């Protein structure tokens, strides 16, 4: 018990880094994902090509590799990010691609008839989007978004590769120093708590949207 209280402060400060990557990625990449997802459905072909190339690159290569490229590769062409900003940039780029695909699917699931019936009722495009389409899309995409959110909690551990001190790295340091697996057990428990909170919040949201089907 004494040992636990000794290493807990460093684990908690690592959790701070994990959470900070997590929240900023969510806050920025979900709205961006909606925009890119809408962009995928425009009839302006060059835009959809660019977006598809971007999504292919982001989903087709490991996030770990993308982190390395952003932090060690971009400086070669004169773009230098500090460690934390580099990590955030890579995570936002990567997760936006996944969210965009999810929102594209959600948008395509809305029947054409919904747009047509809004049109004959003379709703504007914006009113149709806001009152009819987005509420339905949110309900459709919520389970898939939930999956990505849970993944993000754990993916954030990849930031160790560019030298950021997150939760997993804090555990790793303690394990190597004290030659015991106990820090890693604590790390696992903290990750489980974080994902449990996410699961709970997502369940609540899904329940909130269950008043219609």
């Amino acid at each position, binding site marked *: 018990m004494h040992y636990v209280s000794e290493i807990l402060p460093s684990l908690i400060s690592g959790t701070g880094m994990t959470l900070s990557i997590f929240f900023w990625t969510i806050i920025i990449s979900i709205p961006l994902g909606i925009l890119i997802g809408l962009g995928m459905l425009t009839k302006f072909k060059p835009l959809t090509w660019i977006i598809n190339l971007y999504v292919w690159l982001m989903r087709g290569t490991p996030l770990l590799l993308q982190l390395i490229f952003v932090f060690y590769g971009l400086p070669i062409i004169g773009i230098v990010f500090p460690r934390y900003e580099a990590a955030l940039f890579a995570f936002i780029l990567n997760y936006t691609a996944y969210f965009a695909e999810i929102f594209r699917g959600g948008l395509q699931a809305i029947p054409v008839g919904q747009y*047509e019936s809004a049109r004959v009722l003379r709703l504007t495009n914006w009113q149709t989007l806001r009152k009819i389409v987005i509420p339905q899309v949110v309900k459709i995409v919520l389970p898939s978004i939930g999956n990505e959110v849970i993944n993000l909690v754990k993916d954030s551990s990849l930031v160790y590769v560019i030298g950021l001190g997150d939760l997993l790295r804090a555990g790793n340091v303690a394990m190597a120093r004290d030659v015991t697996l106990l820090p890693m057990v604590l790390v696992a428990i903290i990750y489980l708590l974080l994902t449990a909170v996410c699961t709970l919040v997502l369940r609540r949201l899904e329940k909130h949207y269950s008043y219609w089907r």
Partner: protein
Amino acid sequence: MLELKQITKKFDGKVILDGVDLTVADGQILTIVGPSGAGKTTLLRCISGLTPVDGGKFFLDGQAFDPATNRDNDAVIGVVFQDFQLFPNLTVLQNVTLAPTMMLKKDIKSVNQEAQTLLERLNLGGKADLYPYELSGGQKQRVAIVRALAMHPKLLCYDEPTSALDPDLRHEVEQIILNLKQQGMTQIVVTHDMPFAETIADQMLRVEPKQA
């Protein structure tokens, strides 16, 4: 009064509507009949502005208008879709009041009051706070009719109103359409159900598939 002059519509070079002329007088019911693929629904979609035409002219009360760009005026053309297309995320009352509150810029109270009156008139008095998934097919259709009526349309169009319903509900739709006629509503009904078409029609338009 609605007039169509030489309405033409092609899809990929294939002529679907070839110079359709028709006139529907105020308060009359026009039924459009014909086999599948003849262009009945296409004609209805052209009239309601969902499909742009390739040629011809529309007149509403003697005024030329283009349904495809017809927006900020009171020449509203209501549509009751075959599968109703109610908004599943809104209650019955919200389905009806959404467009009038947004477009007609009326206050929510008078819109709600009018919607309630219309719902009661179509036997939906107790259903205002339900969601579409809680309704039967016939109830959904009546909500779709009320939703269209709440926009004070000059003309109300139905696409196959009997096709998604149990056979014994056909009589009910007939009654609704005939009641609306008594109140002066001009209506166009696309159907392949001949006995139904004959019962309600003042005028029938038969469309035939074009030879390729």
